[in-house]
């Protein structure tokens, strides 16, 4: 997995609540058997018209935001399905950090498996960053995971909370499966005991 340490980039504002996984990546793009190449279809139904032409009003189509690496959004971001295609599309577009007042659980978890940092902040902090993000090409924000800070274009700092284990994995780009396989003995023991106590499973 790609490491996440620090990131400085343009923050794009998407001030909608309940941005669901169907909005992030509609179902017709779930037919792929690969993880890559979904960035072009990120937010497809908002980003393009029915003919496939870009909607000039959509934030990621505006000149200043085409290279955005950070997304600032409303409450309950990523609600809906478990499709990991949502973080795959976000990452493939080039976005490595999403900031919102809250996230849906499955989406939040899926981000960490893909080197994306989701940051949940109090509404007033998100409101401030949303204002910052409205500044187009000047909406440059720096994320420092080690120190758990966000620095806005004016130099103002906001700190954020993150689970210690998830932070450790992101900072070092650790692969979950390898970590778990180191604990194979514990899984073997559990399985043997469970076969005794719940043999019908």
């Amino acid at each position, binding site marked *: 997995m790609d490491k996440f340490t620090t990131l400085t980039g343009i923050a794009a504002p998407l001030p909608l609540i309940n941005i669901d996984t*169907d909005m992030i990546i509609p*179902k017709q793009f779930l037919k792929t058997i690969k993880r890559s190449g979904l960035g072009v279809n990120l937010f497809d139904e908002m980003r393009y018209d029915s003919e496939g032409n870009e909607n000039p009003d959509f934030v990621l189509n505006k000149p200043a935001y085409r290279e955005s690496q950070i997304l600032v959004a409303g409450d309950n971001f990523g609600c809906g399905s478990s*499709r990991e295609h949502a973080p795959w599309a976000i990452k493939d577009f080039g976005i490595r950090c999403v900031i919102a007042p809250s996230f849906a659980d*499955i989406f939040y978890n899926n981000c960490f498996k893909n080197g994306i940092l989701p940051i949940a902040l109090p509404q007033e902090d998100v409101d401030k960053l949303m204002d910052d993000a409205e500044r187009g090409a000047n909406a440059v924000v720096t994320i420092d995971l080690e120190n758990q800070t966000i620095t806005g274009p004016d130099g103002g700092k906001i700190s954020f909370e993150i689970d210690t284990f998830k932070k450790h994995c992101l900072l070092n780009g650790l692969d979950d499966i390898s970590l778990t396989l180191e604990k194979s003995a514990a899984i073997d023991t559990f399985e043997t005991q469970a076969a005794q106590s719940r043999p019908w499973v």
Partner: protein
Amino acid sequence: MTAAKTLYDKIWDAHVADEAEDGTCLLYIDRHLVHEVTSPQAFEGLRMAGRKVRAPEKTIAVPDHNVPTTPDREQGIKNEESRIQVEALDKNAREFGVNYYPVDDIRQGIVHIVGPEQGWTLPGMTVVCGDSHTATHGAFGALAHGIGTSEVEHVLATQTLIQKKSKNMKVEITGKLRPGVTAKDITLAVIGKTGTAGGTGHVIEYCGEAIRSLSMEGRMTVCNMAIEGGARAGLIAPDETTFEYIKGRPHAPKGAQWEAALTWWKTLYTDEGAHFDKVVTIKGEDIAPVVTWGTSPEDVLAITDNVPSPEDFAGGKVDAARRSLEYMGLKPGTPLSEVAIDAVFIGSCTNGRIEDLRAAAEIVKGKKIATGVRGMVVPGSGLVRLQAEEEGLAEIFEAAGFEWRMAGCSMCLAMNPDQLAPEERCASTSNRNFEGRQGFKGRTHLMSPAMAAAAAITGRLTDVRDLM
């Protein structure tokens, strides 16, 4: 004396294979359900790393999202990408040796309907699937939740999931339901009250007399939509209704094992005095037949209400409601029962079981679908389809003008050809009314099977009680 535990606490404690100092656990997984959309990258990951499936006997695969539901489907899948995805599952299931129900197997169907039907889902188990509606299996008192594809690969390789414990939330539905009110109305009413993020970070236990009185089919409908309330899992404590449903199913324990299982299953309830972090109580008699009006499952109103105005809301919901109403093509103040529909979809992992089809057929019997409305009934599995045919339900639907389809996810998420056209309005028994969910620019109103059947007959959103 040990501390009082919730049902969730008990199942969790029985499955922790390892716990780190910071509380991060390896949770052992008893059943892993797999479908074609969220698994190809996971199997490919195993292959690249030279890994095997740790417990193929606990892994069950079935294609459901992409499969055509037209009767001619044995001729193959026309859409190339869909065909490749289903073929990939076929190849992976056989290569890795997991349990498998291919498209042409009578037992094929929606993964969340097949699992319980075949007796794979049992009380006290941990169940995962790369699908958010895995919450369905919580109806058996199993801890069941959706996972992403990376986690699918993790479970395939290790039979565990890295997890921290969620909080406990209790949703109690007291008393009895009024006529015309069903499990779907309960689950929508709960989301209407708590919002789509109300359960975030929690596992919900549904309880109370109205829940106890539900059949297993109804309980599955309630738990299915826990995720729409933000909760990764919903639970209902097992009881005689549960045991009766499970007994004799192909993969249910038999003989002495059945007795041993039953003894443990009967301990799976929340102890008196156990702590819940959040409690929601709704009176069963206060729940009306409901429909959704917007593009979030929390946009729930009684069918007797009017379309709301954005000004009825506060905060970010004002803009969201404005956007929803524009998308849905609805004017504030319009009685919901005057909203004309173009299509009706009866099916999905929420409402594609035999009881759902019976409820819809009861309303449809001897009547015709309104002119200009297209109706589709998609059974949740090949066995549900067969049973519905044996009970004469298929005949009732066909006589009324419904299309009688083969099993699959179908128009719930429209990955196969079953889709709405732009601005087409659908009375749907599925679980999500998101923008574009049932087709680009399609408009979805969620409701119970009986309500969807009533809408089919009148051609507009309809209070089913008027037809009873």
